[in-house]
């Protein structure tokens, strides 16, 4: 995999806003350069949003180039886009405009999301554990990195967009198709071969939907392309609509709230909840960074057109949706780790522990571990120098 969030040095004033904003302490500034730890980075958009000089970049696919490579191009459009519309017909206008832009087919996968939503409700009833459901790549990376104890709680489902792409590959097995996923958020961009070289994906290209917007908008008319949305799929991506406000089924949004609920599960302190939907963005996917609408009104837009959505379900076989979540285990003995930990702690004790960030590390522990590995020394600490 290639780095998702990148740093392009020119113009950077080393203001440490990215360092301080990162929710997973993945960013540091060493020798006047912003370094993003790709293992720790969970592909959220927070540093990109915080960067005033716009030197934190997220690569995008060159659409014109990609377009020419295949004989039949398919656009996968995210369910969250519905939050921008007052009327159901507008999604049909949008689909028409996408085709007019040059795509041969427009595909929507809320039917798959709906099936997995129902499957999650069902699967969480048959166990005594609190189950988690997340189609948010950012949340899933957070769990892999910080909550490996909870992997068994995470329902083992493939991403709906990947299932949709796999089905298209099977359908058009004798055709040279190009599958383009329009993404409402940064996290979802990793679910494609390009631009980040995820060779496991069935999707060829991922691109932010905000980049498509001007092209689509130009071509929007009253003409329509028939497109179906599934009611349960739509509900599954909106925080407030997930689970009908049942006591046993809840949704949790935002990384700090997610960490709070995951901590409670680790302490075995959630007694009544059976299923939790986790979303990095406010109100779920409709809060996606690349959507031009806002989730505050969007949530009501969606509710008002929910009844015009389909309720017929697309059955999925278990082998179509089942996917085990894997975690990477560090190959180091406890003695080695303990020795390292003690070394870092001893250095940490000599630092002010204000976590001001002015050395270029998110906190004093970050600086201490780089001192321990011999890469830098404590002259970086401005508080000590004073």
């Amino acid at each position, binding site marked *: 995999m290639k780095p998702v969030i990148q740093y392009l040095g020119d113009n950077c004033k080393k203001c440490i806003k990215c360092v301080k904003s990162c929710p997973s302490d993945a960013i540091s500034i060493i020798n006047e350069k912003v370094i993003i730890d790709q293992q720790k980075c969970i592909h959220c958009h927070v540093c990109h949003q915080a960067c005033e000089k716009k030197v934190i970049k997220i690569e995008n696919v060159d659409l014109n180039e990609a377009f020419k490579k295949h004989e039949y191009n398919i656009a996968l459009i995210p369910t969250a886009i519905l939050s921008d519309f007052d009327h159901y017909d507008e999604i049909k206008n949008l689909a028409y405009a996408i085709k007019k832009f040059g795509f041969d087919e427009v595909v929507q996968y809320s039917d798959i999301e709906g099936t997995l939503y129902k499957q999650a409700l069902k699967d969480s009833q048959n166990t005594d554990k609190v189950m988690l459901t997340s189609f948010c790549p950012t949340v899933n990376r957070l769990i892999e990195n*910080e909550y*490996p*104890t909870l*992997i068994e709680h995470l329902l083992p489902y493939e991403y709906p967009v990947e299932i949709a792409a796999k089905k298209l590959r099977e359908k058009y097995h004798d055709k040279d198709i190009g599958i383009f996923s329009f993404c409402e958020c940064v996290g979802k961009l990793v679910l494609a071969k390009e631009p980040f070289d995820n060779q496991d994906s069935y999707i060829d290209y991922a691109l932010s939907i905000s980049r498509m917007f001007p092209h689509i908008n130009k071509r929007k008319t009253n003409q329509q392309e028939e497109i179906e949305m599934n009611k349960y799929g739509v509900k599954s991506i909106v925080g407030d609509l997930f689970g009908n406000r049942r006591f046993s089924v809840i949704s949790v949004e935002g990384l700090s709230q997610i960490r709070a609920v995951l*901590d409670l599960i*680790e*302490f*075995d*302190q959630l*007694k009544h909840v059976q299923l939790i939907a986790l979303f990095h963005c406010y109100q779920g996917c409709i809060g996606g960074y690349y959507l031009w609408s806002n989730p505050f009104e969007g949530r009501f837009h969606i509710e008002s057109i929910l009844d015009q959505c389909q309720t017929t379900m697309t059955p999925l076989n278990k082998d179509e949706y089942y996917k085990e979540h894997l*975690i990477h*285990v*560090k190959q*180091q*003995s*406890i*003695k080695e*780790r*303990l020795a390292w*930990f*003690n070394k870092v*702690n001893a250095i940490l004790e000599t630092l002010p522990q204000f976590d001001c960030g002015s050395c270029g590390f998110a906190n004093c522990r970050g600086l201490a571990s780089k001192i321990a590995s011999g890469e830098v020394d404590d002259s970086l600490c401005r508080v000590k120098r004073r």
Partner: protein
Amino acid sequence: MIKVYQVEKENYEDAGKASSDIKRVLKSLGIDRKVLKSIAIACYEAEINIVIHSDGGEITFEIDDEGIIHLSFDDIGPGIDDLQLAQTPGYSTASTKARSLGFGAGMGLYNMKSVASSFHIESSKEGTHIHMTFV
């Protein structure tokens, strides 16, 4: 490595903070996730017990040179009357206040005993002492 945490009687706001810190340390050490989960559950239960039932106490968290994790919970009283009964699942003497906050379901000692590699408890009017190890 040894860390000691003070736990205050009936301080429900800070209840669980020591366990959270211990969990954080163990995570950064990359402890096996199954062991980590057992420790998290047992440690939290024991910490809450000190808050709810005792007059205060302390937690000692140690990782010895062999990599074995030791947790000691030492409070200053008033002790448990019937240790046998207290280890029965569902048995609880928690106050209404504690229960209203979601604590005191009566599974504490039973849970600790079932997840720890070794579990030792003694109690008198001067205090309760629990020592658990995790391998």
